[in-house]
Structures are given as structure tokens and as C-alpha cells.
């Protein structure tokens, strides 16, 4: 016991030295309010985890991607070769593809949480605006990224991008800047460069976003309940983040091993191909373009106006209270925006390769606006008073589940770890016999279980004294 104790204090000394000399003491003193532990508050953090995964898998793919069209669509062939013939190529590309989709989905959910809980209230207006810019950049980067596969979907995407740019005022000039001569041999290397460049810009914008969050702290509870006790960021919250990140990575690995990333039909000049459908996050815009109104109006002007109103909302919203039911303008507009977005997405998704009659779209849009406007109006008709008291358990009654967990924490963690290592061993066997799909599946499952064992061990190690 004596020996083990002195060893630990040595490690602790080193960690304290490290924190002191790296100047990270500011971060370790950060405290997390308890309401921010709600899963609703985890979307932003998970989205940034996806960004790190995207950077990592992107660098690996850069070693294998050939940015050229040539006569035989070399770019497509190199992607197919990477997915099918390079060991674990399907996992790397799968993580890149699924993480991109998830990053955009999680950013949208994060946006909805911030918007509807009024987290953009003073002094966090700029954090909100910078966040929206980051979201737009991630969509731009995703668009450029899926154009690089050079299958029928990418070619459709490039074609739409080209015609949109050409119809802008000064389009010819902008077109030659972005696409060069417009031949695929010139477009592909440019798109690769822009894809990485936009992602790099996104990294800088995200750092700015994180810095502002650090400076202003996490927003207080939206229902104006009293300030509550906090838990330390280091090590309690940091280790939770670590465990959740590991579980998410394991899930992505397993998922991309079972469902390898899709690759459409190879595009070759002169061959008939099905019309490609854009990714889901661009589907609403695509549906607008399909109604046949002026493409610049549909693809750029209308979405920009919709977004611009969201951007200026922190200055329009009176914000007497941050509860969504007390903010009539913001809540009603938000509901209408979300409703229109989902309606257009569904309409586009259900009519692949067809035109959308303008009259139908217009009537549907008005109907959705009326319904969502009514719902928003009704929801905000009765003001909700601030929550003054917090529900507190009496000290004696503790949660049964947590008590069971704490009493058995050592064998739960041990069992999780042992099963993880069994799966890992099976994975190594498959790996050695070059059965990469099964190996990746087993490794992914093992990583998930290791994440949970990290989490359980962490509860026993640092959280026990904070739990009732």
C-alpha cells in the first residue's frame, strides 16, 4: 500500500508540473455547471470530435488519392482501389464519410439547442455568429469533399455548382477562378485544394469559437433556475469526454466495417448514368432549385435570407427571459424555418430526378408556415415564470442504480475490459489472416467496450465522492 501510494504521488507531481509549465492551469480550474452535463449539451463537443477524426482520416486518404481525371476517371479508380484493396481503407474512408455526415447533423442539433434555449443572449452573440460561420464552412467542405469521389453524384454536384456560379453577376470571372477551364482534369486538383483549404479555415474558426466559449463560460440554465453546484472540468469532465469519444470512435469503426462507405457509378464521358441525388444536408436547397425558379434566387438568395434572419436574431429577440416559451419572435421563426427545411428535404427526397411544380411547392410552403407559425404562437402565449427552486433529493435517498454501480464498479470495469480484450484477440487473429473486414468489426466493438470500461473506472476513481 505504502509503495503504491508513493508511486501515485510521483505521477501526480509530474502532472501538476506539466499543467503548471504548459500554462494550462487556467483550463484545469474551469468548472462545469451541472446542467451542462445533459446530453443536449454534448452535441457541440461531439461535432468537434468528428472534426478531429475527419482531419486524421483525411490525411491518410491524401496519401492514396490521385487527383486526376485522365481518360479513365483515375480519381474514381483511386478511391475504389483505396476502399477495396488497401487494408482498412474502407474503415478510413467510412469514418471520413460518416463523420462528415454526423458532424453536420450534430452541428445542426447543436445550433437548435443554442437557438431554442436562447444561449446567444448577451455576451455570447458573437460566439453564435462564429458558430454559424463554422457550420456553413463545414457544409462547403463536405460538398467539395464528396465531389472528389467522381461518381455520378459528384458529377451532378459539380455540374450544379458550375451552373450556379455562371449565373451569378460576374460569374464568368468567378468561374475561371474556381474551376479553371472547367475540364475535370483541372477541377479535381482545385477541389482537393479547396476542400483542404476550407477545412483549415474551419479549424481556425472553431478555435475562435472555443476561445469565446472559454472566455464567456457555458450559458446558465435557460429556465432561469438558481445557479447550481458545479463539478471540476479536470479531471472529472475531461475523462468523461475521453470515454465518450472512445465509444463514438469504436461505433464509427464498427459501423463502417459492417456498412462500407458507398461509392456511386463510375462517371465516364458518353455513358448514360442515373441522375445523382445530393447529400441530405443540401437536399432542401436542391428541392428549391428543382421548382424551376431562377437558380440564383433558389440556391443562394432565399437560403441566405432565411439564414440571415437567424444570424441577426440575438439583436432582434427582446430576451426578457431565455425560456423558449417566453420568446415569441425567436421560437416562432425557428419553428417555421425548421418546418420549411424538413418539408423541402422530404419533397426533394421523394421526387428523385423529377421537377417539382412551383405551385405545389408554394402552397406546401405556405401551409407549413401557417401551421408552424400557429404552433409557435400558441406555445408562446402563456409566459413561463422563472424556476426558482430546484428539485433536490434529500441527502438520505440516493439513486439505486448509482449505488449498485458504485458497489460493483470494480468487477463491472474488469468484466468490460476482459470482454474487450477477448474481442481484441479475435480481431488480431482475423487481422493476421488478412480478413480485414471482420478484424475491423471486432476491433471496433472492442474499442467501444474499452471506452465503457474507461468510463466505469473513471466513475470509481474520481467521481465517487461527488455521487449520492
Amino acid at each position, binding site marked *: 500500500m505504502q509503495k503504491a501510494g508513493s508511486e501515485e504521488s510521483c505521477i501526480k507531481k509530474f502532472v501538476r508540473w506539466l499543467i503548471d509549465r504548459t500554462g494550462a492551469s487556467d483550463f484545469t480550474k474551469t468548472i462545469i455547471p451541472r446542467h451542462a452535463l445533459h446530453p443536449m449539451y454534448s452535441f457541440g463537443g461531439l461535432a468537434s470530435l468528428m472534426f478531429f477524426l475527419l482531419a486524421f482520416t483525411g490525411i491518410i486518404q491524401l496519401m492514396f488519392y490521385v487527383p486526376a481525371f485522365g481518360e479513365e476517371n483515375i480519381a474514381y479508380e483511386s478511391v475504389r482501389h483505396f476502399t477495396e484493396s488497401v487494408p482498412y481503407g474502407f474503415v478510413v474512408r467510412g469514418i471520413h464519410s460518416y463523420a462528415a455526415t454526423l458532424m453536420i447533423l450534430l452541428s445542426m442539433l447543436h445550433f437548435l439547442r443554442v437557438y431554442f434555449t436562447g444561449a446567444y443572449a448577451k455576451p455570447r452573440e458573437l460566439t453564435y455568429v462564429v458558430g454559424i460561420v463554422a457550420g456553413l464552412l463545414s457544409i462547403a467542405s463536405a460538398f467539395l469533399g464528396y465531389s472528389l469521389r467522381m461518381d455520378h453524384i459528384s458529377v451532378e454536384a459539380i455540374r450544379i455548382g458550375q451552373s450556379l456560379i455562371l449565373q451569378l453577376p460576374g460569374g464568368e470571372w468567378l468561374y475561371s477562378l474556381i474551376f479553371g477551364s472547367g475540364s475535370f482534369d483541372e477541377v479535381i486538383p482545385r477541389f482537393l485544394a479547396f476542400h483542404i483549404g476550407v477545412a483549415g479555415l474551419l479549424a481556425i474558426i472553431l478555435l475562435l469559437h472555443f476561445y469565446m466559449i472559454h472566455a464567456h463560460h457555458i450559458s446558465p440554465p435557460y429556465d432561469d433556475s438558481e445557479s447550481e453546484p458545479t463539478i471540476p472540468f479536470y479531471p472529472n469532465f475531461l475523462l468523461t469526454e475521453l470515454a465518450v469519444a472512445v465509444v463514438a470512435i469504436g461505433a464509427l469503426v464498427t459501423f463502417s466495417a459492417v456498412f462500407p462507405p458507398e461509392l456511386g457509378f463510375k462517371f465516364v464521358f458518353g455513358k448514360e448514368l442515373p441522375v445523382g441525388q445530393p447529400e441530405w444536408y443540401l437536399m432542401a436547397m436542391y428541392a428549391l432549385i428543382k421548382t424551376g425558379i431562377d437558380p440564383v434566387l433558389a440556391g443562394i438568395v432565399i437560403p441566405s435570407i432565411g439564414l440571415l434572419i437567424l444570424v441577426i436574431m440575438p439583436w432582434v429577440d427582446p430576451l426578457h427571459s431565455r425560456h423558449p416559451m417566453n420568446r415569441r419572435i425567436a421560437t416562432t421563426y425557428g419553428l417555421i424555418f425548421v418546418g420549411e427545411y424538413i418539408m423541402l428535404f422530404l419533397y426533394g427526397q421523394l421526387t428523385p430526378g423529377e421537377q417539382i411544380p412551383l405551385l405545389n411547392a408554394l402552397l406546401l410552403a405556405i401551409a407549413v408556415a401557417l401551421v408552424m407559425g400557429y404552433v409557435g404562437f400558441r406555445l408562446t402565449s402563456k409566459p413561463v415564470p422563472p424556476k426558482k427552486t430546484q428539485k433536490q433529493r434529500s441527502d438520505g435517498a440516493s439513486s439505486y442504480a448509482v449505488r449498485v454501480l458504485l458497489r460493483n464498479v470494480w468487477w463491472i470495469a474488469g468484466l468490460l475490459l476482459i470482454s474487450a480484450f477477448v474481442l481484441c484477440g479475435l480481431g488480431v487473429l482475423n487481422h493476421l489472416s488478412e480478413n480485414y473486414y471482420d478484424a475491423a468489426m471486432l476491433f471496433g466493438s472492442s474499442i467501444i467496450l474499452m471506452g465503457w470500461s474507461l468510463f466505469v473506472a473513471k466513475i*470509481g476513481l474520481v467521481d465517487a465522492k461527488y455521487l449520492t
Partner: protein
Amino acid sequence: MNTIGQSFANLISAASLTNLKDLGVVLFLVLVIGVGTIIYYFYIKSFRPKHNNPENNKRTINRRNFLVGVFVLALSGLIAQFLLPLLELLKKGTVITGGISPGQETPPKIANVADVPPDSQVSFVLRRNPDGSPGQHPAILIHLPKDKAAVAGKEFVAYSAICTHLGCIVGYKSEEDMIFCPCHAGYFDPTNGKVISGPPKKPLPEVKLRIDENGDIYAEGWV
């Protein structure tokens, strides 16, 4: 109606025996993440930062070293499982070049005899390097003037356009009837590709040509 029927058929096919493994994995994912989320919910519900519970400390303190061991083992297992596939990928992964497999190679047509007047050159690209590896290798076709053609014994010759000195692109200089490298003033003999003067040591690799009855010139490969 059609889409509903289709998704139903998809569901049936998803449940079939061949997809049982996929289904098992999906169930595993849902179970592992679902149960974890439920536990996480109870865990955050019972956080009481201001209330240090000595009972709980007593519950875990005896197993502290064990839990540290679990933590360290899980982390090292994790790192091993990242490194193993990553090293395999970097070691065994290959890159496609040119996108053309050796089996389908057809000799590219360079030009027609009528398009290349005497004392002039045409540039083209070969799909293979002189050492036989696939790639894009620039080359030049030269229509020799009469006196040189008599020396060489043929009217059309073709060489690699990559200077054997430092890899600049060479060209045919009609005033001097020589192949010239602009970087360090290397001169090559257009009749056989040998060095006349300058820093290059090795001759330019020659391209084998074939002229069919229509006068089309094809690059057959390296001599």
C-alpha cells in the same frame, strides 16, 4: 405506397440469414450505446458536487489500484488497436498510377506523317517509363532533315524528352539540327540520342516507332 412496400421488402431482406451478422452488429451497437446512455443519465442525475459522500469513497478506495490498472490497460489496448491497422495500411497500401493496367495497353497514336514536316518535332506522352514502370513519360517525335535521315537510316525518330542530366524537358533545335536541353546546355545527337556536349552522361532512351499504311505513327514502346 411503393416506397412503403419497398422499405418493407428491405426490412425482410435485412432480417434474412445472410444479413444476420450485420443485424447482430447493429443490435450490439444499439445495446452497448443504449445501455451506456441510460447509465449515463442516472449518473448525471446523481451528481451532487457540494456533497462529499464518505460512504462512496469507502466503497471504492480499496479497489483504487485495480481501477487504475483497468484504466491503463484499456488505454494501452486502445492505442494498440489504433496502431495495428494503421501500420498495416501504411505498409501494404498501394496507389494507382495512370489508371491503366498493363494488360489493356494500346500503343498511342502520335501523329500522321503528313502533319510533321521535315526538321520539326511533335511532343507526346508514353504510359510507361523506360524502366517499365507505369507512369506518364514525356517524349518527342522528330522528322529528321535529309542529311541526318541518311545517317540514321530512317526519317522518323523518337526519344524520351527527359534530359538524362537533371530531368529537364529537351527539345529539337532545327537551326542546329540537334536535341537541346535548355537547363544546362546539353546537346544530343538526333540520329541516335547520344550526348554531343554538355553535362549529361547517358544517351536519351529511344522510342520504338511503327508507321502503318495510312501514315499514322504509333509509339510501340522503348527500344
